[in-house]
């Protein structure tokens, strides 16, 4: 408690300075001291300002407590944890998904069936959110590079023998496991997003251990663009086709197949692969952009 009070008292210290200190500061500036200079404010605002900086952490804590109380009162109204009578579990949607999902989509994993068949439009939007975020990061970091900073100053993580040898053993396993998760998305827990993230982490590990040079031979900015664009276009096209045929009761070339086989579940496997490719490339792209600002 005492420590807390002390912390509270020091909260606004060394952040703001008041008008009296300004002269001292100017002298310091003339003598060439270029340390950080706190904001100067006039004497009239001073009292309010000090009140605000003192009151802010307390008010933030009170606000959080009030929010906790409101949310806890909402928790009190909820059905008990793990009980079967939550409103969504009682609704007909879930019953339909679970009981007929396997016949209708061909996916054994109902979550994959829901996100890539019943609600595939939602997942398409989600992939586009990821793509838009990647585009925004590109605009912010790639096309507005700081010309003053030389590439040498962004020294690439120095790789040491332990990291390199561990990576040699681990990377094939990681990539293999990621591919398994992508290809197995309709048969068990997994799917494009989780598998793509695993493959992306494998690529990042490779990059850290062996440097970007070898990876850059196959994964340049141009190839990244082509791969992601193709995957998203394939996703959109395939889903347009299946929405059109499904909504009009036409026969589709993608049959659900035998549930439980690897080549089954119609579009879910190819869509999982498309999503996995987008996610893996985007994860690696984020890493490359944030560490050395080029891909």
């Amino acid at each position, binding site marked *: 408690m005492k420590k807390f009070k002390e912390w509270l008292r020091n909260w606004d210290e060394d952040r703001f300075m008041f008008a009296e200190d300004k002269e001292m500061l100017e002298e310091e500036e003339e003598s060439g001291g270029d340390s950080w200079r706190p904001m100067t404010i006039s004497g009239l605002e001073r009292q309010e300002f000090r009140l605000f900086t003192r009151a*802010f952490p307390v008010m933030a804590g009170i606000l959080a407590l009030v929010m906790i109380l409101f949310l806890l009162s909402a*928790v009190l109204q909820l059905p008990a944890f793990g009980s079967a009578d939550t409103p969504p579990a009682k609704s007909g949607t879930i019953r339909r998904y679970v009981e007929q999902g396997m016949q209708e989509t061909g996916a054994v994993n109902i979550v994959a069936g829901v996100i890539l068949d019943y609600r595939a439009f939602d997942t398409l939007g989600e992939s586009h959110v990821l793509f838009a975020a*990647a585009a925004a990061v590109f605009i912010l970091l790639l096309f507005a590079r700081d010309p003053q900073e030389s590439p040498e100053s962004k020294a690439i993580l120095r790789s040491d023998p332990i990291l390199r040898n561990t990576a040699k053993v681990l990377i094939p396993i990681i990539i293999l496991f990621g591919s398994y998760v992508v290809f197995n998305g309709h048969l068990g827990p997994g799917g494009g997003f989780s598998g793509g993230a695993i493959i992306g982490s494998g690529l990042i590990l490779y990059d850290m251990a062996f440097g970007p040079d070898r990876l850059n031979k196959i994964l340049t900015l141009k190839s990244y663009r082509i791969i992601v664009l193709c995957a998203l276009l394939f996703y959109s096209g395939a889903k347009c086709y299946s929405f059109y045929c499904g909504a009009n009761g036409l026969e589709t070339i993608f049959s659900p197949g035998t549930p439980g086989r690897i080549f089954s579940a119609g579009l879910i496997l190819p869509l999982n692969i498309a999503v996995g490719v987008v996610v893996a490339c985007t994860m690696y792209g984020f890493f490359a952009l944030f560490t050395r600002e080029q891909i």
Partner: protein
Amino acid sequence: MWTILWNNRIQVAAVILFAVGFVTLLLHRNLIKKVIGLNIMDTAAYLFLTSIGYIQGRLSPVITEADTAAEHYVNPLPAGLVLTGIVVSVSVTAVMLALTIRIYRRYHTLNLDEIYRYVHDEMEGEK
């Protein structure tokens, strides 16, 4: 009341985690820590959603051939919602970190007060 809260302790934990993230967002002046606070709030939302979907004693929604009764599986819908949420939060985090890098390059600090001061000075200079 306390028994209900104890029975719903996962949701209570989610609420507290949400508040922890919120306070982190408010009290820290470092932009990276603010991003971390926002991520903690995201995590609290996922914890809440998954805890709503769980039903005691039921299997995960990976259907076996013999058993397609809806009474034997947990609710698959919250899992799909959490998946959507995770992807969106990753995207938002990436954009926020990229903006943070740009801010750092311009002002050479991550402290929000110092950034305010620089912006203030710049505006004074324009006048």
